[in-house]
């Protein structure tokens, strides 16, 4: 249910991915986010191809936090921003972050102290926590391919995940 990974920052932060479905209170959650009450990144699962994609975004976010060089205001919005292939923050949050009508949420919690954060989040999200394996059935391959501009030639010799992560990693200077 809760997938834990260790990030590559100096404090070896632990990163937890949680998938919620049949969420009923997306609008309230967004209000809570804006009030700073949600200690997690709430992401649209349709834009996620693999857990690794999210870990890469989270890793970059904690490293930016560590270096005091984040682009956005919180590590949670930073994770969402890092997923985006563009440098426009608002666009990133709109495309990848929780929307008012969303029924599925991929939540990312970054903390050495998991349990209380997960408990708090599960108290906030009115939805069902499901196994992370269900993520692949929620991916919108067409939207992802379009958003990240992955060509069909590329998909003949690489996974979509690798193509997506390459764009994320190079967005500061690619295409030009």
């Amino acid at each position, binding site marked *: 249910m809760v997938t834990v*990974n260790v*990030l*590559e920052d100096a404090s070896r932060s632990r990163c937890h991915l949680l998938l919620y479905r049949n969420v009923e209170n997306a609008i309230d959650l967004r209000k809570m986010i804006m009030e700073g009450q949600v200690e997690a990144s709430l992401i649209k699962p349709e834009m996620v191809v693999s857990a*690794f994609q999210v*870990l*890469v975004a989270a*890793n*970059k976010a904690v*490293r930016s936090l560590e*270096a005091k060089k984040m682009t956005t205001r919180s590590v949670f919005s930073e994770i969402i921003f890092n997923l985006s292939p563009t440098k426009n923050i608002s666009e990133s949050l709109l495309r990848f972050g929780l929307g008012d009508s969303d029924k599925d949420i991929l939540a990312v919690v970054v903390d050495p102290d998991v349990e209380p954060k997960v408990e708090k989040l599960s108290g906030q999200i009115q939805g069902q926590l499901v196994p992370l394996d269900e993520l692949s059935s929620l991916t919108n391959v067409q939207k992802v391919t379009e958003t990240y*501009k*992955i*060509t069909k*030639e*590329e998909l*003949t*010799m*690489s996974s979509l995940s*690798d*193509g997506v*992560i*390459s*764009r994320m*990693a*190079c967005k*500061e*200077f*690619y*295409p030009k």
Partner: protein
Amino acid sequence: MNRELLTQGAEGRVFTTSWLGQSVIVKQRFPKTYRHPDLDAQITRERIKAEARALVRCRSFGIRTPAVYDVDFTTNEIVLEEINDSVTVRNFIYDAVNKQQSMNGPVFMNLAEKIGKTLAKLHDNNIIHGDLTTSNMLLVPPYDTSDIILIDFGLSSVDERPEDKAVDLYVLERAVLSTHPNTELFVQQVLSVYKTAGGKAAAEVINRLDEVRMRGRKKLCFG
């Protein structure tokens, strides 16, 4: 997990390590102390960007390259996908020659054809590799049907003109002929397929190649 050093060149070190649960390659560039530090920082940064860009550009038009997972300008490191069970074309040729396989046989003609097509595509998209050798081309099992995987774009650039493309091919030609015996036909096949696959621009490059050959063993100087 600690990093395991794979190779060390003039530009930097290449490690393999575990990163976010995956096995990856980390390329770390050295600071060049003989340069002014501001200039060094800038040059190194530009080289890293050029390498990462070339890797991603290549995949967009169908040339297989390692995926780029992370670029860090503070540590001058780039994290790349590790291609499992890969063999360099260099070692592939060594192994086959040791097993008495002929360089003029179907295995190598097929390999030459694949290389020719890959390079035609590369240059058609105006990417100059900058260090084309058989050590910078990988194959994965099953080797006879493997795509050519290009690596090490650390000296790459973008140019539509035939000159740098011709030098790219010349470097490969010299590398193959001097590293592996009896490869004249192999090289010829690479260039012939390159010309056919590449169209008019490729024909120009081949013409230019003749001029480059005549200049001798002079290497192009890079900044």
